[in-house]
């Protein structure tokens, strides 16, 4: 049974990839539970299974075995369409390389997750503008991604991850492509979101960045090696 306190509850999750003849066990029975409103960093060397972990947490992939309860709902064996809906409604993504859509303006990029929920975009115009203002881009609504700096693009991505009011924001090395000053700005925004009650799961390989989280989960060889509260 899922823990009612936890927004994320993972039980004995295994992920096995078939690479030709060889079975690769990327996750070998992971248990993890994340409480609502927490800020968790996942660390680990490459090959430790942290990317697989993020994909499963982000409902982009299904575990081979084990359960994953997201907000009390078992999403571990849902089909592709239902997972798409879950991603669209309950998750927000921030990527290392921002991943804005080039042909859309700032405000349109923020709206993208709403398109796939079949809502009337007009009803959300105000909210999108507020989110743009929240990340300090209220005066750039009609700019294209190519007209923005890396830090500005990442801030648009943060606004986009918030537009569907998700249960949790998944950030995959959100500061990996940024210089140290914009890294600070972006981390401050993320901290502020957490302070406002958002649950944040962030993958990183930098100790300094991980240090900003309340809890750091270290992974190694497909299992959780250490789970440290900061």
């Amino acid at each position, binding site marked *: 049974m899922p823990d009612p306190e936890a927004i994320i509850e993972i039980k004995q999750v295994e992920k096995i990839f078939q690479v030709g003849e060889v079975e690769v066990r990327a996750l070998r029975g992971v248990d993890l539970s994340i409480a609502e409103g927490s800020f968790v960093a996942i660390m680990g060397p490459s090959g430790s299974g942290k990317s697989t972990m993020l994909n499963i947490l982000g409902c982009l992939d299904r575990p081979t075995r084990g359960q994953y309860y997201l907000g009390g709902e078992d999403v571990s064996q849902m089909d592709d369409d239902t997972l798409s809906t879950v991603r669209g409604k309950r998750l927000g993504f921030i990527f290392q390389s921002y*991943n804005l859509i080039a*042909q*859309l303006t700032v405000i349109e990029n923020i709206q*993208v997750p709403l398109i*796939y929920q*079949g809502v009337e975009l007009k009803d959300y115009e105000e909210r999108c503008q507020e989110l743009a203002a929240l990340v300090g881009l209220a005066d750039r609504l009609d700019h294209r991604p190519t007209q923005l700096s890396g830090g500005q693009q990442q801030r648009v991505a943060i606004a986009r991850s918030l537009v569907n009011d998700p249960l949790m924001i998944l950030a995959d090395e959100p500061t990996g492509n940024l210089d140290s000053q914009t890294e600070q700005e972006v981390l401050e925004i993320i901290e502020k979101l957490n302070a406002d009650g958002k649950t944040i799961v962030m993958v990183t390989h930098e100790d300094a960045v991980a240090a900003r989280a309340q809890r750091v989960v270290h992974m190694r060889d497909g299992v959780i090696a250490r789970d440290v509260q900061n």
Partner: protein
Amino acid sequence: MISSQLLNTIQLGVKSLLLHKLRSGLTMLGIIFGVCSVIAMLAIGEGASYEAQERIKRLGSTNIIINSFKPPEQNQDDTSNNRSFEIQYGLTYDDAGRLQRTIPGVLHVMPMRIIRENIRFGRRQEPGQVIGTLSNYPEIQGLEMARGRFISQTDEKHQRNVCVITAGLAQRLFPYQDPLQSTIRVQAIYYQVIGIVRETGTLEQRPQRSQTDGDPVDNNVYIPLSTARSRFGETLVRRNSGSFSAERVELHRIIVKMRDTDAVIAAEPQIKQLLTRFHDQNDYELIVPLQLLREAEATKRMFNIVLGSIAAISLLVGGIGIMNIMLATVTERTREIGVRRALGAKKKDIITQFLIETIVLSIGGGLIGVVLGIVTPLMVSFFTQMVTVVTPWSVILAFGISGLTGVVFGLYPASQAAKLDPIEALRHE
């Protein structure tokens, strides 16, 4: 709600296409040319067959025309053996009578004598043909009186020397006076002009001279058949350089007017059979305008099938061009597809997005092609005086196929896009 979502997707598709204006434009060209050429070619083909069909229709679809003509083998015998032989051939008054009596569904049998002669008034003279015929000729041939009246039955009965001339001839012979009540001379005999008919254009064979001159005129003089018989006799003497030949022909043409088109079909073999029995040589020909019309229509159908195939091929090529570009686009935008999938897009959302892009391309191309396809025949008509007819169905067909091309050739790239694994797509550089 669904429609606003669709509108969004269309808007997005247009935006994505505008991102690569040159590429989208070049891709559209295939469809533009395909659609344009289909409409233009069909319009030109339609125009050409329209003219031919009009000409045949004016011969009268319920008429059967029987012409006398000189049997070729007889002619050769004649010139080699005897230089002054009188050849007898062609249709006879008896033929006309038999046709009237035996063929079911006959309304009128119109016997005609056609004699090529110079028409004279004072010192003016025009080459033309004298046509001996009956009073109901205008009705059968759809001839319209411009002034005066046509030959009457009384004229026929009394073999009066009266004539009706075509408007063009009237203008050329009588530039300064009123042709009505004037007299024209053919050979040594004078005929009083009692009426003028409008130019017929194609009803009668035109005198050879004016045809070669490129001046289409009908110098026709209509006189009562009985008058023609008594004034010209039945033997026509023609002098050529060094030799002369005489031809004895009773009737040059018989027009059989049938009750309706069904009767025409039934009567054709019957007439052939009847004539074969009384003619031991092949000295007549049957022209059935209805048959010609059907043949013209069959030819046109053939033509349309050929054009349709060309059109299909050109649109196929256009479609392959679109598919090619869309496959490249999918590869190029793999990352975007991954992002959209991560942000909640289902497979069918991705399919819709790319499909709509191809449809926008092909329908955009189709619309431009339709405009060009309508303008091109107008230009052709303007510069070459050719008749072109843009039919609505050719526009609908071409445009419909262009839309269909978009769907058919868009499905594969779109499904390739939807098949991408979101994780792989996100990692794609």
